[in-house]
């Protein structure tokens, strides 16, 4: 479904991503694990079209994404939840969700309402906050809103950048559970970039370990799980792995 080859992202003279290959198959949950600065955000931002890579091929659903801007990639079925959530803090939860369907101008108001109801069924606490400004939500609620908003575009591929950042373990578990359901019941393909190796590996089928902008290690989740010492090494002791 998603095929990335030889991706290079450069900031001035610094290479953020240096020849990265990865692929995500239909229906999979894949996790991209790396320390701060390893190139996770650069990778997912390049996939979503927020930064322009200097080299590499990004194929999504058999189409070359190279010439498409971020908005066109959304229309093509890709949704990114950026690091730090990116909810529209001054707008209400309702408006955030409505805007999630911006890429589907033909959607009728009844369908829009159904989609919003569906998102709220997934994260019921959003329902209690429907007419509140998103900026007044807790960090966990904002992350849920960001995911729900991304789902309003009915994506085929959902990309999440550090969804567990700054959240309590209980909230992280809740989000992980929802993502698993999303994958198993609705067939949404999911790519998660995470520093917290446990969230990713607990729910993912496969994983990549990223170091200095390159893939250092890849394998199925059980393989990577059995290699926790190695992961700790690649993460530079910054993260932990629950065993």
């Amino acid at each position, binding site marked *: 479904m998603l095929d990335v080859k030889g991706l290079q992202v450069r900031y001035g003279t610094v290479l953020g991503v240096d020849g990265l290959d990865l692929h995500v198959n239909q229906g999979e949950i894949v996790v991209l694990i790396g320390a701060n600065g390893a190139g996770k955000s650069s990778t997912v931002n390049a996939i*979503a*079209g*927020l930064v322009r890579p200097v080299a590499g091929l990004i194929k999504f659903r058999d189409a070359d994404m190279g010439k498409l*801007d*971020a*908005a066109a990639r*959304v*229309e093509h079925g890709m*949704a*990114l*939840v*950026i690091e730090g959530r*990116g*909810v*529209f*803090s*001054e*707008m209400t939860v309702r*408006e955030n969700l*409505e*805007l*999630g369907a*911006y*890429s589907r*101008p033909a959607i009728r108001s009844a369908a829009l309402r159904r989609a919003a109801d569906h998102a709220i069924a997934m994260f019921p606490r959003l329902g209690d906050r429907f007419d509140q*400004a998103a*900026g007044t939500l807790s960090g966990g609620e904002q992350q849920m809103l960001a995911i729900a*908003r*991304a789902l*309003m*575009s009915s994506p085929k591929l959902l990309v999440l950048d550090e969804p567990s950042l700054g959240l309590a373990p209980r909230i992280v578990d809740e989000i992980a559970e929802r993502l698993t359901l999303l994958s198993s019941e609705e067939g949404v393909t999911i790519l998660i970039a995470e520093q917290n190796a446990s969230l990713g590996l607990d729910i993912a089928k496969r994983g990549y370990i990223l170091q200095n902008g390159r893939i250092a290690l890849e394998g199925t989740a059980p393989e990577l799980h059995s290699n926790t010492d190695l992961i700790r090494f690649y993460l530079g002791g910054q993260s932990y792995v629950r065993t």
Partner: protein
Amino acid sequence: MDWDVIPQFLAGGLAIGAVYGLIGVGFSLIYNTSKVINFAQGEFVVYGGLATVSLTAASLPTAVAIPLSLAASVVLGGALQSLLSTARRGSNELTYIMTTIGVAIAMQGLAQHIWGTDFKTFALYSDGTIRLMGATVNYGTITTLLATSTVCALLWVFLYRTMIGKAMRACANDSRAAQTIGIRPRRMVLLAYVASAGIGGLAGILITPSQMMSYDNGVPLAIKGFTAAIVGGLANPFGAVVGGVVLGLLEGLGVGLISSDLQNAYAFLSLLVILLVRPQGLFGRAAAGSAR
């Protein structure tokens, strides 16, 4: 002192204040979507006013001349944004803002070439007046206030009730996140320029009949409009209208009570005082989110 004259002084500043407010709305819309200040904003006011002068002089009725001028303003706004966005590639905000000042000077030169250096005017409203709370208010003021209220109402409906208006607010709130849901920030910026140019052109049409218009009015009007937007809190276009009216009223009072020689000073003195007390403006950040 005779306090009975105060309402009349205030009434004198009301219309011009509303016009400052309309110009300020343009500053606010463009700032919100692109985080830059467009100092060519005042030129839209000059062109809107002077174009209507020319069209009515060519014996078109005002009911035709005004929509034509507004349409021309909108096209001008779109053209300016296309030009500026090309110039913007690879430059920072400061360079861009300097470019808008350059565009303002060029537009002023072009206006001088087209319309000459004379003050010009056209007739829009009849000379009648009404009595209101102890003041005599002329039809020009009434027309300006009605038009300004209409613009505010339409702008509110656009920003809070239409999808594209909400997308514009989303873009102002977080343009990066907006891209991830399919919004194209450059389109929103273009839209902001088009709307600002249209509203600026309308401001010109509203003041030209009472104040007259000349090719070089753009910069002082831009500065007043910018002040209105800062007083209101740049992030909130409706704050800019209130800011403009506050400025206009203070100017009216200053001119009436002290001297008309200092007309331009009152606005900036009040700006200094307001920013000392409320650095974020009257309706700055904190209130911007709840203005619905």
